[in-house]
């Protein structure tokens, strides 16, 4: 399960390779532990432009918590002007007491906004499972400001707070569709798409997150109007020439 011990070597080997994907940064703060950061370049998938990132962080010798991930990032190769990073985290609190986790994910996916196309249309969803590893009761509570925050260039644009029942084993499901459209924060281009998760997990429990955070560049309304006007003038000029 925790196969990340061999990943640093793979990552180093791929960083300078043409097969290497964009940089993914995962930073995690856990109650009572110093912040840890993992940098990796993904492996190509069968879908061109999409890369798979598998890795993990742990408490070290105490093995009192584990953070593992299996993510896919899209570098805009498949659909120009569009990018995404998935959520595929498994977080285990192997200790007896509750712990608070703060996990920040940043995927380097430079989306270039052409002249007048400085808006981004974003989509998010989030689901997961919560399991007590010893058959007791597991609980997951969001920490302020919300359990999941979708970020563009490090600025939060969508927040999700799914209701998670307290039980032995359950699934939770955020709203099916969460969208945001607006000016690219810290633009004009998109340097990173990412998300932040802040929550408290009961002892001897495991939570899994599954979901998507995507962004597509769209022309600003003003640019659309100018484009329409230009098209109109062009057609009018053509009709006049034909006359």
């Amino acid at each position, binding site marked *: *399960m*925790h196969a990340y011990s061999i990943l640093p070597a793979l990552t180093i080997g791929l960083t300078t390779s043409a097969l290497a994907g964009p940089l993914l940064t995962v930073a995690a703060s856990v109650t009572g532990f110093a912040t840890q950061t993992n940098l990796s370049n993904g*492996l190509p*998938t*069968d*879908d061109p432009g*999409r890369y*798979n990132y598998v890795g993990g962080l742990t408490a070290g010798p105490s093995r009192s918590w584990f953070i*593992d*991930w*299996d*993510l*896919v990032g899209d570098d805009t190769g498949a659909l120009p002007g569009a990018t*995404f990073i*998935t959520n*595929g*985290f*498994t977080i*285990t609190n192997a200790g007896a007491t509750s712990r608070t986790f703060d996990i920040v994910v940043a995927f380097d996916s430079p989306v270039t906004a052409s002249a007048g196309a400085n808006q981004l249309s974003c*989509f998010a*969803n989030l*689901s*997961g*499972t919560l*399991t*007590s*590893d*010893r*058959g007791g009761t597991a609980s997951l509570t969001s920490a302020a400001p919300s359990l999941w925050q979708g970020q563009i260039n490090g600025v939060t644009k969508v927040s999700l707070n799914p209701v998670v029942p307290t039980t*032995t*084993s*359950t*699934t*939770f*499901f955020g709203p*099916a569709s969460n969208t945001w459209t607006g000016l690219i924060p810290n633009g004009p281009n998109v340097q990173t798409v990412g998300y932040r998760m802040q929550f408290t997990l009961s002892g001897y429990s*495991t939570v*899994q*997150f*599954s*979901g*998507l955070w995507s962004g597509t560049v769209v022309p600003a309304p003003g640019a659309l109007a100018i484009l329409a006007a230009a098209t109109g003038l062009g057609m009018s000029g053509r009709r006049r020439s034909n006359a």
Partner: protein
Amino acid sequence: MGTHHRRAGIGLLSLASVVGLAGSASAAVVSVSKVVTNTRSTAQTFVYEASITASENIDSAGIFGSFSLVVSDFNRNGVMAASTVAGDLYSGWLGSTRVKSFVPSTSGGPAGSFQLSAAANQQNFFTAAFGTETAPEVLASSVKIGDEIRVRFEFVLSAGDQAAVSGHFNVVDMSAVPGPGSAALLGLAAGIRGRNRRRTEND
């Protein structure tokens, strides 16, 4: 989503614990929690197992467990997770004997099979359980020290999509589980004690 699939490999997980508490109904818990992304262009079969070695004898075993699954579409063509062979979605083992084949009922698939799907860019989830700690399923089986207690999940996942799967397999000692009559007597005794306490506090 193609119908062709192949075995992607077996993941042996370590999230298992022997509770082994004296006087407790729970003797052993084996759990699996795994997120997997199918990065291939065809559907793949995924198998995950977790196991422990029994640390105590159980003459009369009872079992209960759970299964949860979340599926997410990432490539804008829908997602589907399904059982491969009917009965193999969730199986619980004591030694070399499969004692539980849990096939949660879902709509849309053939009888005895499991299927969970979602439309483009969407997610879907499913959770189900069998037995409980106080009312486990009773087996005509025993567990000896050294026997392997194992849970196994097997499913096929459509190309480019993700599944988050988790669940338990609990084995209990039926001699430590209070019977319905005992539970009723315990409840009655607790009620009488509570009433007497309230009466004393009010006096």
